[in-house]
């Protein structure tokens, strides 16, 4: 079962609508509210980055697909921004006190910490595809 919605000409003002769509879809698909809530934190970070860094001054689209099956909850993002694989970014060293860490890596940390699995793919038609999965064996 899945829900799908295309957000066009996205700006930061769309973030709340995107979160609402994921929350309502998760509820409709019977996903656990806590799993949905954590996933939204991770996805919100990614959508923010796509809008600010990916599209920059341009207006682009983000398609969100929400899936739930057998306690596994997934959110998939598609965008047309320049190809970028965030999973290749190094997260900060959590063994070092936050005040003494090298700057950077907070974005990927936010995306990885709240889901069980984060995967990046390039679609055959040249889009970025980012898959957030939480719960179960991480595969739908």
């Amino acid at each position, binding site marked *: 079962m899945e829900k799908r919605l295309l957000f066009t000409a996205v700006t*930061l003002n769309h*973030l*709340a609508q995107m*979160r609402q769509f994921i929350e309502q879809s998760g509820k409709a698909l019977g996903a656990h509210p806590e799993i949905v*809530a*954590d996933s*939204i*934190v991770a996805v*919100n*970070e990614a959508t*923010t*980055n796509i809008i*600010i860094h990916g599209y920059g001054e341009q207006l682009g689209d983000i398609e969100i697909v929400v899936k739930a099956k057998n306690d596994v909850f997934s959110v998939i993002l598609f965008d047309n921004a320049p190809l970028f694989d965030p999973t290749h970014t190094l997260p900060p060293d*959590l063994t070092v*006190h*936050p*005040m*003494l*860490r090298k*700057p950077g890596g*907070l*974005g990927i*940390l*936010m995306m990885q*910490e*709240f889901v069980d699995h984060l995967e990046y793919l390039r679609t055959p038609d040249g889009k970025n595809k980012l898959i957030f999965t939480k719960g179960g064996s991480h595969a739908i």
Partner: protein
Amino acid sequence: MEIYVSQIEGRVPVTRLRLVGDFVEQEPIVNVAQKELDSGATHILLDLTNVPFISSMGLRAIYAIYEKLEKNLGSEQSKLHEGIANGTYKSPHLKLLNPSKNSLKALTVGGFDMFLEILDDEAKVKTAF
């Protein structure tokens, strides 16, 4: 994101920066904070009561404000490092108020709760600084 500036009179004057909306940009709030620092602000309260979400950009903004404050005020480095080493250090100049559940998740994952006091009650602000 909207930013409202006000003053709180307590043991020390506190500049309250009240944010409304998603905290997903760095520049606007850092610019406002810099303006307040230039005007002599020494203690800042970031009021997050009306912030549904904080992204990594928001976390970077908070860290930038923290750094500017400590640099401006010339915090004693030996005490600071001692506090970090034994896990007791909290910034005396920057504190956060009322983050949402989701904002708190971001702050905790980023380790910001390790050096910034997070207040959950406005009544505690005057005595917290």
